[in-house]
C-alpha cells in the first residue's frame, strides 16, 4: 500500500511529535511498521494523537497502536 509512512508521519508532525526511528518488517505474514516517536515537545494530548491515528487506521484499513514506551520497558525488562 502506498503512503502509509507519509500519512502517519504527517499526523505526527501535526502534533509536533518527532519521528526518531522507523523499522519495517514482515512478521507472521503481516507487514509491521514500528515508529519510535519523541513526544516530549508535543502539542496537545497523547490521547488526541491516538484518536487521530485510529482514524487514519480505519480509513486505510490498518490497525495502528499508539502506546507509550514505558509499557514495553516495564513488561519486558527487569
Amino acid at each position, binding site marked *: 500500500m502506498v503512503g502509509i509512512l507519509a500519512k502517519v508521519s504527517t499526523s505526527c508532525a501535526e502534533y509536533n511529535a518527532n519521528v526518531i*526511528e522507523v*523499522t519495517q*518488517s514482515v*512478521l507472521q505474514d503481516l507487514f*509491521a511498521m*514500528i515508529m*519510535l516517536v519523541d513526544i516530549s515537545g508535543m502539542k496537545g*494530548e*497523547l*490521547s488526541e494523537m*491516538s*484518536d487521530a491515528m485510529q482514524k487514519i487506521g480505519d480509513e486505510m484499513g490498518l*490497525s495502528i*497502536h*499508539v*502506546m*507509550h*514506551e*514505558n*509499557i*514495553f*520497558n*516495564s*513488561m*519486558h525488562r527487569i
Partner: protein
Amino acid sequence: MVNVHDILETITMIQDENLDVRTITMGISLLDCCDPDIDKACEKVYRKITTLAKDLVKTGEDIEKQYGIPIIHKRIAVTPIAMILAPCKGGDPVKFALTLDRAAKDVGVNFIGGYSALVHKGFAAGDVELIESIPRALSATERVCSSVNIGSTKTGINLDAVGMMGRIVKQASELTADRDCIGSAKLVVFCNAPEDNPFMAGAFHGPGEPECVINVGVSGPGVVRAALAKAPDNANITEIAEIVKKTAFKITRMGQLVANEASRRLGVPFGIVDLSLAPTPAIGDSVAYILEEMGLEQCGCHGTTACLALLNDAVKKGGVMASSKVGGLSGAFIPVTEDAGMIAAARAGTLSIEKLEAMTAVCSVGLDMIVIPGDATPEIIAGIIADEAAIGMVNFKTTAVRVIPAIGKKIGDELEFGGLLGSGPVMKIRYQSPAKFIGRGGQIPAPLQSLKN
C-alpha cells in the same frame, strides 16, 4: 530501543488474548462520615465519595489511551457500612445503600463495594441491622455490592452469622427473582476477607487501610493459556509452571505500571496490585481452558485440583517479583458463570459443586458465581457457607461463597445475567438437611496452627 519482538508480543496479548487491567479500585475511608443523624451521615458519605473519586473514571480512560491497555472497570470500595451505621440513632440502613448507588452513578463507576459487616467473632452495634437490610439494599440499588466476613483463622467461625447469611442470600435472590436473582450475585460471604481486595463483589476498604488508596487488579487468563498453547506437547509440568510464572510476571508489571500512573495522576497513594487471573465469558478468557491446556480433557475431571494448585502458585511466584506491593486475593479465580470453560464443564456434568469445593482449597477465592436450585433451604445454603469457611479457616486463606439460588428454577435450567457476570446452569446440590447443626449457633473455635500434619 525496545525490541520488535517485545512490541508485537504486547500487542498480540492485548489484541488477541484479552490482556487487560481488570479494575482500578479506589478505596475510601468513610470513618469521618459518622453522625447520629443518618441523613446527615449519608450526605457526608455522598460528598466524600464524589469529591475523592470525581476524576477516577477520566484518569482511568486517559491511562488507557496513553498505554493502549484496556482498563475494564473503575470502581470504589468503602469502609464497611456497618461501622458507619453504628453511631446512627435509628433510620433505615438502606439509605446508605441508596447514597452509595447515587454516588457511584454520579462519578461513573459501575460498582461500589462496602455494604459490608465484619462479624467473624460476634455482632457489634449496627452489624445485625446492616445484615438484615442487605436483601432490600441489593434489590433497591444497581451498583452496590455487599459482603460479610463470618470467620477467620484467628477467631474461628461465627455460626450464628453463617445461619443468618444462609437466609440473607436466599432473600437477596427472592427479592430480585424478576431480574435473574441478581441480588445474590452482588453478595459475598467471606472467611479471612482481605481488607484491600480491589475485585467485586467482595471489595471493601478495611479498617486498617489509609484514608484513600488506589488498588489495581490485573487479569489475563487468555494470555496464560496462549503461552501454554505454544509449549510443546512433551513439555514437562515444571516447564509449564515456568511458562505461567514468566507470563504472570509480564501481566503484573503492566498492572504495576498502571497502578503507579493512576496513583500519581490522582494524588492518592498506591496500595497493592492484586495478581489475579480473573476470567470473563469472552472466548479464550477462561481459567478452565488454562487447566485444559495443561492436559485435562475437561475442567472438573480428576487431576483438576492439582493443575489449579500449580497455576495458583505459579501466578503468585511470577507476580510477586513484578510488583512492589502485592495484596488482595491474588491467585486464580474460578467463578463458574463468568468462565466459558467452567460453564461448559458444568453443563456437561464434569464439574460438580463438590469438585469446586476441593478446588477452592488451592485457588485464591472460593465457591464463586455458582447457580443452585431455588428450592435450596436457607440451612442448606448456610451449610455450603460453613463448609467453605472451614476450608479457609483451617488453611489460613481467603475463601468466599457467592451462590445464586435461582428462584423457580431446578437442576439443569439456566440463569442468564449477561455481561461480565455471564450465565450458567443450575448445579446439583444435596437436599439432606444440616438444619440442626446450623441451628446450634455459637462459634466454631479457631483451629490449632501448629502440630500440623
